[in-house]
C-alpha cells in the first residue's frame, strides 16, 4: 500500500506539474464570471424574479449567492468539464506512449494493469479536484455578487423546481457535489478508454468529445424524448436529483449503477487493448 501511494503520488505530481492541467481551472473561472455577468442582465433578472414571485416566493430572499452559484455550476460544468476532462484523460496514456515515457515505465517490474490503475486513479482525483474547485469558485462568485440567502433550484429538463432555506440549500449542494464527481468520472473514463487504444492523444480527446456531443444532440431531438433517459448525458444529469424535495434514491441508484457498469466495461476493454499491444517504436 505504501508503494502504491508513493507511485500514485508520482502520477499526481506528473499530472499537476503540467501547465495544461491548469488550463481547465483558469477557463472555468473565466466562464463562471461570464455566466455571472449574464445573470446580472436586467432581462435575465426579471425572468428569475417572475419565476419566483409566480410561485409565491420573495425574489430578494432566493436570488442569493447560493442560487447564482448553483446556476453557474449547472451551466458550466458539462459544457467545459467535458472538454477539460477529455483533454486530461485522453492524454494520460496516449501522450506517454507518444513521448516514449511509457516505455521507460514498462522497463520496470510494475505490471501494465498496475500502471493503468495508477493513471486512472490520478485522473479520478483530478476530476474530483476540478469539480470541487468549480463548486467552490461558483459559490464564491455567487456570494460576492448577491450575498447570502436561500436556494432556488430550477432545472426544467430534470423537472426540478425547489426552494430551500440557506442551511438546507448548502446541505443539498454539498450532497450534490460527490454525485457530480461520479457523473464527471464517466467523461474521464471514456477519455481514458480512448487513450488506451492505439491512437494519438488529440484523437482520444476528440473521440471522447464526439461521444458526448452526439449523445447530447440525439438526446435533445424531440423524436427521442420518449427514450431520453437512455442517453448517457441524461444519466449523468442524475446528480441534480438531489435538489428534489424528496430525493428519488431508487432512480439515482439505477442511473449510477448504469454509469458504473459502463465505466467498468470501458476500463476492462481499455485494459485488454493496452495489455495486448506491443510497445516498440
Amino acid at each position, binding site marked *: 500500500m*505504501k*508503494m502504491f501511494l*508513493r*507511485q500514485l503520488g*508520482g502520477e499526481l*505530481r*506528473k499530472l499537476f*506539474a*503540467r*501547465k495544461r492541467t491548469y488550463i481547465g481551472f483558469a477557463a472555468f473561472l473565466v466562464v463562471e464570471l461570464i455566466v455571472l455577468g449574464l445573470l446580472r442582465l436586467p432581462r435575465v433578472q426579471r425572468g428569475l424574479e417572475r419565476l419566483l414571485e409566480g410561485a409565491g416566493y420573495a425574489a430578494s430572499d432566493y436570488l442569493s449567492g447560493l442560487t447564482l452559484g448553483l446556476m453557474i455550476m449547472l451551466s458550466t460544468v458539462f459544457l467545459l468539464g467535458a472538454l477539460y476532462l477529455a483533454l486530461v484523460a485522453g492524454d494520460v496514456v496516449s501522450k506517454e506512449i507518444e*513521448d*516514449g*515515457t511509457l*516505455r*521507460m*515505465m*514498462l*522497463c*520496470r*517490474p*510494475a*505490471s501494465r494493469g498496475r*500502471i493503468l490503475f495508477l493513471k486512472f486513479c490520478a485522473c479520478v482525483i483530478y476530476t474530483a479536484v476540478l469539480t470541487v474547485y468549480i463548486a467552490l469558485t461558483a459559490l464564491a462568485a455567487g456570494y460576492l455578487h448577491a450575498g447570502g440567502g436561500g436556494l432556488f433550484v430550477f432545472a426544467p429538463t430534470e423537472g426540478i423546481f425547489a426552494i430551500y432555506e440557506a442551511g438546507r440549500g448548502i446541505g443539498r449542494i454539498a450532497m450534490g457535489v460527490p454525485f457530480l464527481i461520479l457523473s464527471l468520472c464517466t467523461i474521464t473514463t471514456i477519455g481514458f478508454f480512448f487513450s488506451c487504444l492505439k491512437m494519438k492523444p488529440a484523437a482520444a480527446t476528440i473521440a471522447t468529445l464526439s461521444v458526448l456531443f452526439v449523445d447530447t444532440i440525439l438526446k435533445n431531438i424531440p423524436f427521442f424524448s420518449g427514450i431520453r433517459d437512455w442517453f448517457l448525458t441524461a444519466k449523468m444529469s442524475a446528480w441534480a436529483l438531489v435538489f428534489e424535495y424528496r430525493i428519488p434514491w431508487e432512480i439515482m441508484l439505477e442511473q449510477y449503477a448504469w454509469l458504473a457498469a459502463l465505466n467498468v466495461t470501458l476500463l476492462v476493454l481499455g485494459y485488454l487493448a493496452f495489455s*495486448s499491444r*506491443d*510497445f*516498440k*517504436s
Partner: protein
Amino acid sequence: MNPMVSLRALYKTFGKRPAIEDISLEVPEGEIFGLLGHNGAGKSTTFGIMLGMVAPSRGEAFIAGHSVQKSRSQALAGVGAIFETPSFYEYLSGWENLRFFVSLSGQDVPRAELETAVELVGLADRIGDPVKNYSHGMRQRLGLAQALVPRPRFILLDEPNDGLDPLGIREMRGMIRRLRDEFGITVMLSSHLLSEVEQLCDRVAILHRGKMVFCGKWKETPDLWQFTLDPQERAHEILKTHGLKPLQDSWVAPEGFDPAVLVEALVRAGIHVRGLQPVRQTLEDFYLETIRE
C-alpha cells in the same frame, strides 16, 4: 553457472513479416554481451521481448531463471534498462524523474542509493534542473542512472552511445566497464558503434534480417595472414600444402600454424618472400564479412 539471460527460440512477426526468427542465446552472469545488426535487423524487437514490451509469437525469454512472458515482475525485478531513446518528463527535474521511475520498481529505495547513482553518472550538479534544460548526453546519463536504481543484477542498454560526443562515449564506456568490474553487473547492449562494442564486449551476437548469423567470441575467428610472394601460382600451391585456405585477399591459417616453417619451405622452393603479415581483423571487418556471407 546459470545464465543471466536465456533466449529460447524467439520468433516474432509483425503482420506477416517476421521481425526475428529462431533467436536463441545465453548470456552468463558477469559478461558484457553485444547485440549487433543493421537497423531493422531485430535488435529492438529482441530487447522488447526481454523486457515484456513485445509479446513473442513463439519462444520464451528468461532472465535470472524467470520467464519474462510468464512471470514478468520477478524476471524484471533485478533488471535496469534503457530501451530505445530514453524519454523523460521534460517539466520535472532530473531528480523527480528519477524518483518516479524508481518508485515503479516496487522497492523502498533509500535516498542515498539514488544519490550514489547520480554521482556515478556525473549528474550531481544538475540533477535538480528541469530535464527540458538537459543536453542529449545528460539525458543518456539520467537514463543510465534510473537503470541503476535499485541496484540491478542485469542491465540492458539499447544504443547507450546514441548521440553522444566523443568524450561522452568514452565516459559511457568507462561507466559500463565499472558496472561489470566493480559491481558484477551483467550487461547486454546494442550499438552501431562497433569500435565501442569491440572494446567492451566479451561476446557478440549478430542479427541479420531477423536471423542470428553469429553468436560467440568474435576474436576466436580464424587466424588470417596476408602474403606478398613471387611467383604467385607456385607459392599458392605451397601455401595450400601447408593447410592454408584462401579467403578473399587473405589466407586462413590452420591451428598450430608456424610462419617460420612456411617461410623456410617457400625459400627452399625458390619463392621470393617479399612480405607476410598477420591480418588484425576488427569487429567491423568481422561484422561486415559475416553479414555478407
